[in-house]
């Protein structure tokens, strides 16, 4: 019988990992890429999307009525104008808040989210309680987020899907006349574009 002098090789890396390492070594040797450049690209891509894109869309809509009109008519195309088109064939729909209508977005089935404009969804967006309760009792949930809506305001809950995703366009806060787009964009939070918050009006420096 065979004895037990097995080969104690280190645990092998996966085959594609070895291929990738060999290819990288070759490209570096040929001077075609540097490992630092690859690091930089990977790091950049992992944090490329964020709510700042959506904030710019909203700020543009606040300052440019023609853009707002295009955004509400076809948000996918309007967002693309600013260079924030997502991959895939997702349809983006912009839903505008007014003094009497408050929109809020949920995905009851899973966690569909307009990531091309809002980046990655917050954990609570994916949580079963949010997904279930936002439909059943939106006012109560919004109150828990600290958002007390006037009794006369109508709450509209939008259920995202893989095909259609929603971006809430909040009401421009009072006291921001003459502000630049950049300054306005800084007021637009992620949650205000999901509809669980509204942008804070600028107050006296606090």
């Amino acid at each position, binding site marked *: 019988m065979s004895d037990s002098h097995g080969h104690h090789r280190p645990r092998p890396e996966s085959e594609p990992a070895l291929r990738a390492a060999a*290819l990288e070594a070759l490209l570096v040797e040929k001077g075609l890429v540097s490992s630092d*450049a690859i690091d930089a690209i990977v790091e950049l891509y992992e944090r490329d999307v964020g709510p700042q894109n959506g904030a710019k869309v909203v700020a543009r809509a606040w300052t440019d009525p023609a853009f707002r009109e295009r955004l509400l008519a076809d948000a996918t195309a309007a967002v693309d104008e600013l260079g924030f*088109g997502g*991959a895939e064939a997702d349809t983006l729909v912009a839903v505008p808040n007014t003094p009497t209508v408050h929109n809020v977005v949920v995905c009851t089935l899973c966690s569909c989210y307009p990531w091309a404009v809002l980046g990655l969804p917050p954990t609570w967006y994916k949580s079963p309680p949010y997904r279930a309760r936002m439909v059943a009792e939106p006012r109560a949930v919004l109150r828990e987020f600290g958002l007390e809506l006037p009794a006369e305001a109508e709450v509209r809950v939008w259920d995202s899907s893989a095909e259609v995703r929603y971006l809430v366009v909040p009401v421009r806060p009072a006291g921001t006349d003459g502000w630049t787009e950049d300054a306005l964009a800084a007021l637009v939070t992620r949650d205000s574009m999901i509809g669980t918050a509204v942008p804070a009006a600028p107050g006296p420096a606090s």
Partner: protein
Amino acid sequence: MSAPRPGGTAGLAEVDAALAGLAPLPRDNGELVFEEPWQGRALGMGVALLAQTGASWAELRRHLVAAIRARPHDPGESAATAYYAAWLDALEALLADQRGAAP
């Protein structure tokens, strides 16, 4: 639109636009899926290579789509592993093109 990028390399939106429909990057609700570090390196190598050699996204996409179609389906392999293994195939094919075109 986003943070400064290393010289001339494509932003993620450009990559998405180039691959849309045919060979989109694997994502989980927007977040790129890299199950192992080599998958990110495969993507990064491709982007860096195009910036450096001037090869076009159309060429890379053509090789990538061909590689995805040609790869035997392995039920034990995750979608991201299969996808980025096809990237490696495509990068090798792109390099072979360039060798062929070299004087």
